[in-house]
């Protein structure tokens, strides 16, 4: 097990390094003088010179990269061009809202998705199954930002039950978390159902049934447990989708999180913030996938032998 862990970690590190290289190269790939880009459009010549020496732009590129790596590891991510706060501070402020939103969306969508998937699998062919699957494929095809607007129109503007956006009490979480989780719930439902159907057809389940094992036991002990493995893997992958989806949902609901910060920064060309955000998002994504892989390895011993 330990060997597997080390092997997977070792595999992840090159990817993470490659990501840092790409992010580092970002300001160098853009047209123009990197120092000017980082200092901002209304920086004085002295400011630009200061940034230039800070970034070590006179040194060779690999040296600059190492400097960048060192600074980033120390959480010195530069300063926002727009607000002049340190990027670390900006991100720190926005981290919690996004985390909470993503976690709540994840919780409800995975639970609901798997539950619906199991229900559909068990009642295969019946109207519950048909309806659920229609809803599921609609959920995957629905533009998240449209759903958000529709919900705001109905529940906030017309009915006045919930706020249209912003962050504060639990009421603020309802619509954004729901909107964010819909696509994930839909995917989980479809996947769980098909995994369920596949496994139920397996010989060992049929044997259990033939042996007279009670249906509930068949469903829970035999089918679901085995379906759990691919479901866990899928959950991890969906987390990446949630991260991306959060970017759009936060914009619709005026959520003070990392996603909206990224959109605002791209529009404002606030390069220090853009770089840090891209780095953060992809690191989170890679790490989640790593954790999922490790969990998978834990649950499924076969994988470890590879």
């Amino acid at each position, binding site marked *: 097990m330990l060997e597997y862990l080390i092997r997977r970690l070792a595999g992840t590190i090159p990817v993470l390094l490659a990501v840092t290289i790409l992010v580092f190269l970002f300001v160098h790939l853009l047209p123009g003088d990197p120092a000017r880009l980082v200092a901002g459009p209304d920086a004085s010549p002295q400011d630009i010179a200061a940034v230039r020496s800070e970034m070590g732009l006179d040194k060779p590129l690999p040296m600059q990269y190492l400097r960048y790596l060192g600074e980033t590891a120390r959480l010195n991510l530069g300063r926002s061009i727009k607000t002049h706060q340190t990027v670390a501070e900006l991100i720190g402020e926005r981290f919690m809202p996004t985390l909470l939103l993503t976690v709540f969306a994840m919780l409800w969508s995975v639970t609901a998705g798997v539950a619906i998937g199991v229900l559909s699998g068990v009642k295969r062919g019946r109207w519950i199954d048909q309806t659920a699957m229609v809803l599921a494929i609609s959920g995957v095809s*629905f533009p998240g930002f449209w759903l958000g607007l529709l919900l705001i129109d109905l529940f906030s503007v017309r009915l006045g039950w919930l706020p249209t956006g912003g962050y504060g009490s639990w009421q603020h979480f309802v619509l954004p978390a729901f909107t964010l989780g819909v696509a994930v719930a839909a995917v989980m439902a479809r996947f769980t159902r098909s995994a369920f159907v596949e496994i139920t057809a397996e010989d060992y389940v049929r044997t259990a049934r033939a042996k007279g094992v009670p249906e509930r036991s068949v469903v829970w002990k035999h089918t679901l447990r085995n379906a759990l493995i691919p479901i866990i893997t899928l959950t991890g992958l969906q987390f990446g989708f949630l991260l991306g989806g959060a970017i759009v949902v936060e914009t619709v609901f005026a959520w003070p999180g990392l996603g909206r910060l990224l959109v605002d920064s791209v529009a404002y060309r606030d390069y220090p913030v853009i770089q840090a955000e891209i780095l953060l998002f992809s690191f989170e994504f890679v790490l989640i996938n790593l954790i999922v892989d490790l969990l998978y390895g834990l649950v499924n011993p076969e994988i470890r032998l590879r």
Partner: protein
Amino acid sequence: MSDAVLSAPLLRSPSAEFWRRFRRKRVAVVSACVLLLLILMAIAAPWLAPYGPATPDYDNVLAGPSLLHWCGTDTFGRDIFSRILWGGRISLTVGFVSVALGGLAGVTLGLAAGFFGGLVDSLIMRVMDVLLAFPGILLAIGVIALLGPGIANVIYAIATFSVPVFARLVRGSTLALKRTLYVQAARSIGVSAPLLMLRHILPGTLPSVIVYCSLRVGTSILTAAALSFIGLGAPPPSPEWGTMLAEGRSYLGVADQIMLFPGLAIFVTVLAFNLLGDGLRDALDQRLR
């Protein structure tokens, strides 16, 4: 042996078999028809649309649906139905072109990786891993941050994050197909590598690629609309569906038609692509196994 000969006339060719199975899935067939219709409408937009995409009518602003304007009008009195037709050209173009670009690159890389193995494989798949380290829309936003907003750059951005998925898919198929008898046979008689890849392996990977393409076009259209919605894609006064939704945001509860119909257009289009993809996958499933 004699049984096989006797039953030979009843065996259909693989493609005929596929069509037979596909035709049986009504939903998929309906989606295919709907998509065909949408494509035709988009192509015929200049003749079909009752108004231009930017024709203002200051006496009829923010009007609800009526006989004159089937989907109502927006802030400037522009006909929303016409704009949806014109916007369809943009959405479908972005969807198809980005998937074509990404697919072409991805399939090529996947074939090479799977076929040559070794260092080539490692290198290519490592790069793909790095691209996959970014959640889809984030990569697209990163590319846009580099290239600037606009619909052309949206196409490149979306193509970029399609590449690794196609590559992985094709690599997997290639690895499996490499081991089949007929490929081994072809190799042993000295068929050249490019010919092998193109004539013997590529066709084998196509079914799953086609299924994936259909699903991917749907995702691409969705992502393009999302990018336009957050202001990084087609700017106003473009009739791009996402851009129209962004404009409709200001009028929630006041003039819902601006938000309702473009969103519906996106939904129907993406749904049709997804259902088609599903149907294709089911019809091809037996063959893949």
